[in-house]
C-alpha cells in the first residue's frame, strides 16, 4: 500500500489501473493509454499530479539563496509569477532533481519537485537554506491537477467566475499566479499548452468532476510518459540522475554560467576540463520495425551509448527514444533489440510540439 492522493478513490471508481510510482498509488491509465495520449494532443486531458511536492521558500535572502542552490539563475525572474526550469545539482555536478521554481514575491518562491526525490530534495534544500534564514515549507495541504491540450485553458477557464477566468487566460507562458485561492501556472509536461493548478486538497474531487463534465479526459501516468517523451522532456530517474550532469543530459540551456561570479552548487565541477569528451543526450527515431526501450545499447561510429527513455510515439506512429551517446554523434546508428541491430536515426528533440510532428518520419519503415 503506497501513499494516496485526494483523488485516489476517484481514480479507482473510474476504472483506473493503479501502479506504484515513487511510493504513490497512481493511475497508469483508465482503459486506453493511447486514447488518453491522443485526447491531450487533440483536445484536453487532466492528470492528477498531487504526488509532486510543492515547496514554499520564504525569507529576506530567498533570492540570494536560490542563486546558489540552483544551476539556473532566478535573477532572470523579473516579473512576479514568472517560472524557471532548473536542475538541483550536487557539488560534483550530478543532478539531484529537476524542478520548476516560481518567483511569487521578492522574498517568496514556490518550487515544484518530483515525488520520488522529495525526501532527499527537502533534506538538501533545508540544509543549505539554514545559513540564509530561508524557511522551507512543504505544502502537503495541496492537491495538483495538470490540465493539458489545445483546449485545456479554455475548458478550465469556463469553470471559473468571469474575473478569475480572465486572469487565468491572461497568464503568459511559464508564469503562475494566485487566482481565486488556487495557484495556477501555465506550465506542463506534455508539449501542449495548459495549466498546472495547485488547490486545497478538499477541492480536488469537485474540480476533477467539473473538468470531466467539461469533456476533459482523465489521463494517467502512461500517457504522461509518452507525451513527455514526444515533447523531448527528461524524466528524472531515466534521463537524469546523480551520475550525470546537465551538460550530458541535454540540459546545458538550463545552466546559467553568466554572470561568471555566481558560485552555484556544482558550477566548479561543470567548468572543470575533462579528459574524455562528455556524452550528450539526443533523440532517436527507429527506422526499422520494433520498439526502443530504456537501457538498450546503441552502436555509433564514435562508440557505444545507451537509451535512457524509449517507447512508442502515438502521434508519430513510430518508436522514439532519448539516448546518451558519444558527443557529436549524428546520422544513422544501430540499436540492439533482442540480438538484432536495428537502424535508427539521430534527431533533435522535441519530436512533437503543439500537436505537430517536428521531425521527418517520411522514410518508410523497412520490413
Amino acid at each position, binding site marked *: 500500500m503506497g501513499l494516496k492522493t485526494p483523488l485516489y478513490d476517484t481514480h479507482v471508481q473510474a*476504472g483506473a*489501473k493503479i501502479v506504484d510510482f515513487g511510493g504513490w498509488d497512481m493511475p*497508469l*491509465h483508465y482503459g*486506453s*493509454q*493511447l486514447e488518453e495520449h491522443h485526447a491531450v494532443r487533440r483536445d484536453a486531458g487532466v492528470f492528477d499530479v498531487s504526488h509532486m511536492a510543492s515547496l514554499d521558500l520564504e525569507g529576506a535572502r530567498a533570492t540570494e539563496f536560490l542563486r546558489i542552490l540552483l544551476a539556473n539563475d532566478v535573477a532572470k525572474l523579473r516579473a512576479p509569477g514568472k517560472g524557471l526550469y532548473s536542475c538541483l545539482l550536487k557539488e560534483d555536478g550530478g543532478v539531484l532533481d529537476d524542478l520548476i521554481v516560481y518567483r511569487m514575491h521578492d522574498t517568496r518562491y514556490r518550487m515544484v519537485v518530483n515525488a520520488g526525490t522529495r525526501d532527499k530534495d527537502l533534506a538538501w534544500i533545508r540544509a543549505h537554506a539554514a545559513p540564509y534564514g530561508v524557511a522551507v515549507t512543504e505544502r502537503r495541504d495541496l492537491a495538483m491537477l495538470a490540465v493539458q491540450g489545445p483546449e485545456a485553458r479554455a475548458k478550465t477557464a469556463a469553470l471559473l467566475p468571469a474575473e478569475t477566468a480572465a486572469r487565468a487566460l491572461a497568464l503568459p507562458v511559464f508564469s503562475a499566479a494566485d487566482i481565486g485561492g488556487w495557484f495556477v501556472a501555465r506550465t506542463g509536461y506534455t508539449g501542449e499548452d495548459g495549466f498546472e493548478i495547485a488547490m486545497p486538497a478538499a477541492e480536488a474531487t469537485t474540480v476533477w468532476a467539473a473538468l470531466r463534465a467539461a469533456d476533459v479526459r482523465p489521463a494517467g501516468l*502512461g500517457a504522461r510518459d*509518452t507525451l513527455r517523451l514526444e515533447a523531448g522532456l527528461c524524466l528524472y530517474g531515466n534521463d537524469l540522475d546523480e551520475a550525470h550532469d546537465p551538460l550530458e543530459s541535454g540540459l546545458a540551456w538550463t545552466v546559467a554560467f553568466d554572470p561568471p561570479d555566481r558560485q552555484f552548487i556544482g558550477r566548479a565541477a561543470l567548468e572543470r576540463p575533462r579528459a574524455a569528451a562528455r556524452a550528450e543526450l539526443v533523440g532517436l527515431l527507429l527506422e526499422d*520495425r*520494433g*520498439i526502443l*526501450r530504456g537501457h538498450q545499447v546503441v552502436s555509433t561510429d564514435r562508440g557505444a551509448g545507451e537509451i535512457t527513455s524509449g*517507447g*512508442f510515439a*502515438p502521434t508519430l506512429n513510430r*518508436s522514439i527514444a532519448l539516448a546518451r551517446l558519444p558527443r557529436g554523434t549524428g546520422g544513422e546508428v544501430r540499436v540492439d533489440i*533482442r540480438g538484432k541491430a536495428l537502424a535508427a536515426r539521430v534527431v533533435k528533440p522535441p519530436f512533437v510540439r503543439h500537436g505537430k510532428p517536428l521531425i521527418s518520419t517520411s522514410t518508410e519503415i523497412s*520490413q
Partner: protein
Amino acid sequence: MSEPTGDLPKDLKYTKSHEWVRTLADSSIEVGITDHAQGALGDLVFVEVPEVGRTLSAGAACAVVESVKAASDIYSPVDGRVVASNAALATTPELVNQAPYTEGWLIRIAVDASAPPPALLDAAAYARYLAEETN
C-alpha cells in the same frame, strides 16, 4: 478489471503463461494471448511473430508482444513448426486488444505428433488459475 470467469471461450485450451490454443480442422493449432493478458499489457503497439517454417519447442519463447508499457515473450504451448503468422498484426497490433480470441491470433503451428501431448488447461481450470493468481 480482473473477472476471469464467464467470458473464457469453452472451446479453447489455455496455458499458465496466458496463451490460448485452438485446435483447427486439420489438427494444426492456432495460438493467441488471453483477454486477461492483453488487459494486463495495455495497448499493444508492436508484435513480432516467428517466420513460417520455424521449429518451435514447447515452453520456449516464440514471439514478442510489445505494449505501450513493456515487451513480453509469448511461449509456444507445443513442439511443432510454424505454418502461418497473422500478417495483419504488423500494421494493426491493436487487434490483439480488440479481439484477442479471434482476429488477434498470433501464429498457427503444425504440432509435432511424436512429442508428448502438452499439459494445457481447460477454461474452468484457467479461470481458477487466474482467480488464484490475482488473489
